[in-house]
């Protein structure tokens, strides 16, 4: 069953990436699949519609649940990053206040590897943030602010 959900998630990601203008070959490389499988997916073959429905529901979970569930299913941070970022419809703006002590707990927590330490201060790459808020929740000094950006939807 988890395998089917993963297929559903990969399908949704593939569709979105193609829509963004990537070639089937590029999509296959990113998702580490055969190009023929991507082609099958896009033609609606080898995949139950039910898997896609379940995957769609998962993408609509709150960002933290979507991310942690996807990570649990794939157990691979690179693919989790691609799937979650591609299927998330919202953008976020993350900022770190001066009260940050550079403990790196957020760096270790972020499943999207969006945070690095710079001169004892966390720096969050908003492009990769999916708004899961896990970094904000572990921050011992409440220094992280994550805001949803209204991007026209």
């Amino acid at each position: 069953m988890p395998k089917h959900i993963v297929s559903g998630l990969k399908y949704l990601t593939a569709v979105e990436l193609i829509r963004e203008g990537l070639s089937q070959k590029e999509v296959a490389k990113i998702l580490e699949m055969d190009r023929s499988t991507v082609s099958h997916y896009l033609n609606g073959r080898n995949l139950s519609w039910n898997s896609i429905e379940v995957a769609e529901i998962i993408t609509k979970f709150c960002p933290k649940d979507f991310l942690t569930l996807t990570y649990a299913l794939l157990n691979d941070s690179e693919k989790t990053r691609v799937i979650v970022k591609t299927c998330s419809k919202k953008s976020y703006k993350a900022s770190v206040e001066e009260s940050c002590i550079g403990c790196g707990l957020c760096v270790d927590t972020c499943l999207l590897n969006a945070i690095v330490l710079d001169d004892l201060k966390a720096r969050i790459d908003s492009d990769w943030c999916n708004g899961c808020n896990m970094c904000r929740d572990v921050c011992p000094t409440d220094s992280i602010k994550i805001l949803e950006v209204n991007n026209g939807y």
Partner: protein
Amino acid sequence: MVTNTKEVKGKDICVQRISPEEKRELAYKDDVCIGCGICAKICPTEAIELGEIGAIERTGVDESKISIDEAKCVLCGMCSSACPVDALDLKLDEKSIKDMAEYPQLIKSAEISDDLCIYCKACETACPRDAITIARILPERSKLVTGEIEIDKDTCISCGICEEMCPADAIEMEHHEPTSSDPTVSSDITVNKDKCVYCLICRKSCPVDAIKAVCRSCSYGDYDLNPEDSETTGSSFIDEEACVNCGWCQEICPVDAATVEKAFEGELTIDQDTCEACGACVEICPCNVLSFPEAEFGEQSDKVQADETYCIYCGACENVCPVEAIDVKRTAVKHTPTKSKSWEKQLSELKT
């Protein structure tokens, strides 16, 4: 989820956080710790607590001087940067933050210049932490005296008076029981010229004037002595782990060979009216700043005295005083620059 693990080895503590990105490890060494509690003061998550230092240092309480709550510790390293004696050390992927420029470091040092040191060992004796070792090579005694000595063995009656009198144990006789084939009491007498200092006592005490000796140091002064032969050489060593940069070596050195830089500036005040002379502060102070004046047996001892010259303003005495008679103020915390506003703020809050 990343979680911390704690390992306790004897009284040493190690807290770790391992993630795919990096390994953070905070190591605490109890024998280096002076119980000042600065780590507990600077910890932004209140993960460190200072133990019952008085009980630990003075009675048989077998505990670490601090405790670290691994559930609260975020391994930020502030305790490691602020510890005045480096009892705490945070390592990121096995590299100490004390070797990383982005982390502020307390500016403190102690050095002995081998160019100036005359190896008198005053600092070694005075150091309250036994952190200094002075290894010295003394000049050869025989090179500092010059003279001549000769024993006329035909005149010598082997009485052994010179051997007994010689203050340098330089004369040796080979005693033996006389026999009919060798009716003498000694087979030989020799002078060890490495030991002889040409004091002439043997010559003066010989009952038969068998010894001819002259001291050239006396007649020619220092002319035929090489000044280099009289120099004491050696080397000095400061054990950085034990050193607390108190400044005793700098103060006691007669030739200004020791230089100490202290991380904190401040003020130490003792309220003599409140002091109950229990001695807890005297025992806890890592720098021998505090002492009681000598009291006659049976007399009540005086209140505690302080010489701030040696104080590092760590505050251990203030923490341990049961009647709040001691006030330690820190007016400056000297550290290398940091771009982090929060670190700057936490370090400056050590000022009181």
